[in-house]
């Protein structure tokens, strides 16, 4: 079997050296790395449901909370099936249908991936591998959460049938090719040298701009005015659970229980903490009160922004990224959104799209070469004498923004040929829970 060097876009060049260095020892199963990646996979699963469901669900009105929870849960179920059936193979296979863009069906239904087979992919630990099945499942949970993130934008007005078809097609036609381009060893974007530790482009920029495309086509909610979240305690719970799960997302992305994973863990927590302070501080300055929703939103923005940077930046860099991204997103969500008038209901674009871009660019600024030194690689940002990295990051951002935005426009239009996207105004008024699922979240008396 062809040996992959690594799935990280960032590792293109460095990895040559790395592979050479580490070519000698035969890869063996590392039970420690496997233990961490099993746990990390469970943590990333936890992010989609219940965490994201609660974060989003608390923000909508009572009559729509189930529809949001259902979208998260359905994304988990639908994408898991697609991923096992052929998604993983199309995204990560080393033999390809479209070179550099799409793999083939060689690993369909995890064919040939019996339990003893080791993952061909590794990041910081070339010798101590995890089972191939674990790597595939870890990736599955990334594929799951991405369409669920988009759902925040079009909350409270999309037909469930449209959601199902759209999610399936979007996963296959946008997520999978982008994942292949960015993460597979043959991927066209992989070869650019873009630094993206845990999925800033494939997950967050991708979801964010898909969200923007959808809401532009779908239009505003019929009664588009600011409504109070129906349960901010859920939103707070959800934010805390996302933070918790994100440790798996970012620190799991080293595919090893080692110092790089640890470093990503530290960066994740530092960025979330800094961002979780900055947003309510801006609230305090501008609107007189530090808000809980601000703290929760800030933390999530910090987590988004640090995602591409997690394994490359030191704690101070991580805090800077979290803080800067929060300032930009605050401005987008509270000023620009209103000005432009698109209805990004729960700020999927404002937080993930914009936060993702800021994070991707700042990775090119704050990447600290000291981190990977002992691991035989060098990743430097502008601050450490490598201004060119910023340019590479910008190209990466541009390509993924275009792919996500225009690709999504097309998919939407495609699905729109078959199914109407929006519920009727009457259904919107009555609420999606009753009209789409014939259920209610809460009883009044019982």
């Amino acid at each position: 079997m062809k040996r992959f060097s690594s799935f990280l876009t960032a590792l293109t060049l460095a990895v040559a050296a790395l592979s050479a260095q580490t070519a000698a020892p035969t890869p063996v199963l590392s039970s420690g790395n496997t233990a961490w990646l099993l746990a990390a996979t469970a943590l990333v699963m936890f992010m989609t449901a219940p965490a994201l469901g609660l974060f989003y669900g608390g923000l909508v009105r009572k009559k729509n909370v189930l529809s949001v929870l259902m979208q998260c849960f359905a994304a988990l179920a639908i994408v898991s099936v697609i991923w096992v059936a052929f998604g993983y193979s199309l995204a990560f296979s080393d033999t390809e249908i479209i070179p550099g863009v799409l793999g083939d069906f060689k690993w369909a239904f995890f064919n040939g991936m019996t339990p003893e087979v080791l993952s061909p992919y590794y990041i910081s630990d070339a010798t101590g591998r995890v089972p191939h099945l674990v790597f595939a499942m870890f990736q599955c949970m990334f594929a799951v959460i991405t369409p669920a993130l988009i759902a925040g934008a079009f909350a409270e007005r999309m037909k469930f049938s449209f959601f199902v078809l759209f999610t399936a097609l979007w996963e296959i036609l946008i997520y999978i090719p982008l994942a292949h381009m960015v993460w597979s060893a043959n991927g066209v974007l992989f070869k650019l040298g873009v630094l993206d530790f845990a999925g800033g482009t494939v997950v967050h920029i991708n979801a964010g701009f898909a969200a923007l495309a959808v809401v532009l086509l779908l239009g505003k909610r019929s009664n588009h005015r600011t409504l109070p979240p129906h349960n901010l305690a859920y939103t707070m719970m959800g934010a805390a659970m996302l933070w918790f799960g994100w440790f798996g997302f970012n620190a799991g992305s080293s595919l090893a229980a080692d110092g790089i994973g640890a470093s990503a863990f530290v960066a994740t927590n530092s960025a979330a903490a800094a961002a979780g302070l900055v947003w309510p501080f801006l609230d305090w300055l501008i609107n007189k009160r530090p808000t809980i929703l601000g703290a929760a939103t800030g933390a999530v923005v910090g987590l988004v922004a640090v995602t591409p940077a997690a394994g490359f930046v030191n704690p101070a860099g991580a805090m800077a990224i979290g803080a800067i991204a929060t300032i930009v997103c605050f401005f987008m969500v509270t000023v620009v959104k209103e000005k432009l008038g698109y209805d990004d209901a729960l700020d999927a674009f404002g937080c993930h799209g914009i936060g993702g871009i800021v994070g991707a660019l700042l990775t090119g600024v704050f990447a600290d070469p000291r981190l990977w030194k002992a691991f035989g690689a060098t990743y430097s940002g502008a601050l450490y004498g490598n201004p060119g990295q910023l340019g590479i990051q910008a190209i990466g951002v541009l390509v993924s923004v275009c792919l996500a935005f225009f690709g999504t426009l097309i998919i939407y239009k495609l699905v729109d040929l078959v199914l109407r996207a929006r519920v009727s105004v009457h259904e919107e008024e009555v609420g999606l829970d009753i009209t789409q699922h014939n259920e209610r979240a809460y009883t009044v008396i019982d």
Partner: protein
Amino acid sequence: MKMVIAIIQPWRLEYVKEALYAAEVKLMTVSEVLGHGRQDGAPEIYRGQKETGNLLRKIRLEIAVNEAFVEPTIAAIQKGAKTGEVGDGKIFVYELAEVVRIRTGERGGKAIG
């Protein structure tokens, strides 16, 4: 027999209850309502957007009393609920044609207390 309905600020409920007890009015029915009155109330702000709903939380009291108790009841509610700020609320009074105590079947003035 009269029914006295009062809409008050939620946090005045304890004071109103005390005042009513002091006036020997001890039976009442309470519920949570939303009110739109003259009070504006700083709008809540969510992600920098001002909430545009304008219904404020209020408590609604429903107290059935015999004629002699109407004015003392009104006075007690006023005593407990009044802060002098806009939003203190209102009292509505209407005539009751009949009152029945379910347990005993008693009717009228006897059933009220």
